[in-house]
């Protein structure tokens, strides 16, 4: 039924060779690149024109952020493993890996909460200086993306049995799109970590 409303959701469109969903998620990610790009450009402006700029490690907690980097990279691996399990028709492992991805998302947010709380306790606020302003904006926007990715992943965890019974191919495609978003969130963090914490 939905096939007639929105065409090419599980079959590739002949001219692009892709499903419309795949084109859609990549166009969305392209817009996300520009959104984060604007903040990275702002960072460059603030930093190159500042007379003084603190080393990230003098204010921020590098060990915690290193753990968070490892958590996020691991969650990207569990995400692709969830997709691969689905391709192998292994529903149990799919749920295990996707569940692990969501849990690792909570883990990332938990560590971020600890970091933010420590800053607030020491009265280090976005209004304190430009470094903290761009730090809170960029990690805050990234954190919102983590929450967004966790919501879609959680949905594909909860709704999976009904997809599994009715349209396995569709579940495979949608989990792949959700994964593309999740990997993008990981990719942004890969740049945020060195520029905010290590330089």
């Amino acid at each position, binding site marked *: 039924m939905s096939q007639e409303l929105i065409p090419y959701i599980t079959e590739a469109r002949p001219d*692009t*060779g*892709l*499903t419309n969903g*795949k*084109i859609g998620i*990549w166009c969305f990610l*392209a817009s996300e*690149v*520009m959104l984060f*790009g604007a903040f*990275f*450009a*702002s960072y460059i*402006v*603030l*930093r*190159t*024109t*500042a*007379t*003084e*700029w*603190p*080393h990230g*490690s*003098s204010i921020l907690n590098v060990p915690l952020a*290193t753990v968070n*980097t*490892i958590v996020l*990279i*691991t969650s*990207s*691996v569990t995400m*692709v*493993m969830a*997709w*691969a399990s689905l*391709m*192998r028709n292994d529903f149990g492992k799919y749920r295990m890996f996707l569940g692990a991805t969501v849990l690792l998302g909570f883990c990332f947010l938990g560590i971020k909460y600890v970091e933010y709380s420590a800053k607030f306790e020491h009265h*280090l606020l976005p209004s*304190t*200086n*430009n*470094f903290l302003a761009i730090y809170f904006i960029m990690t805050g926007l990234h954190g919102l993306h983590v929450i967004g990715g966790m919501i879609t992943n959680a949905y594909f965890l909860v709704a999976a049995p009904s997809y599994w019974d009715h349209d396995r*191919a569709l579940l*495979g495609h949608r989990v792949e799109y959700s*994964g*593309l978003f999740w*990997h993008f969130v*990981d*990719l942004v963090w*890969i*740049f945020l*970590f*060195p*520029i905010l*914490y*290590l*330089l």
Partner: protein
Amino acid sequence: MSDTHAARAAHDPAEIDRHVRTYIMVFATLMVLTLVTVAVSYLHLEIHEAVAIALLIATVKASLVALFFMHLVSERQVVLSILALTGFFAVALLLLPVVTNLDHITTADMPVGATAGAHSSESAHH
């Protein structure tokens, strides 16, 4: 490559096994690079070297994620074209502030923020 990546893979367990081996290798590489970039930051290199090394490592890591986890290594031309266009504009966006500051950066007496090695949380806000 007549079909989409996922649809082809779904019918070929051997290919999925190959994918999984790649994922594990990429995972190990990303972990090593994460530790390397943190270790390098503790060496307290000169700022230009530190920036170059950190950005190089981050770019390699991001490329691994995009190529293998996001399957760009076997993606269709349409997606690669969209991304090439996005990459062009994203680079332009990042270069814009650098270009507008070019006269300052090339003027030796301008105190560029990057040279400030202050280990204090002093405000950069005047």
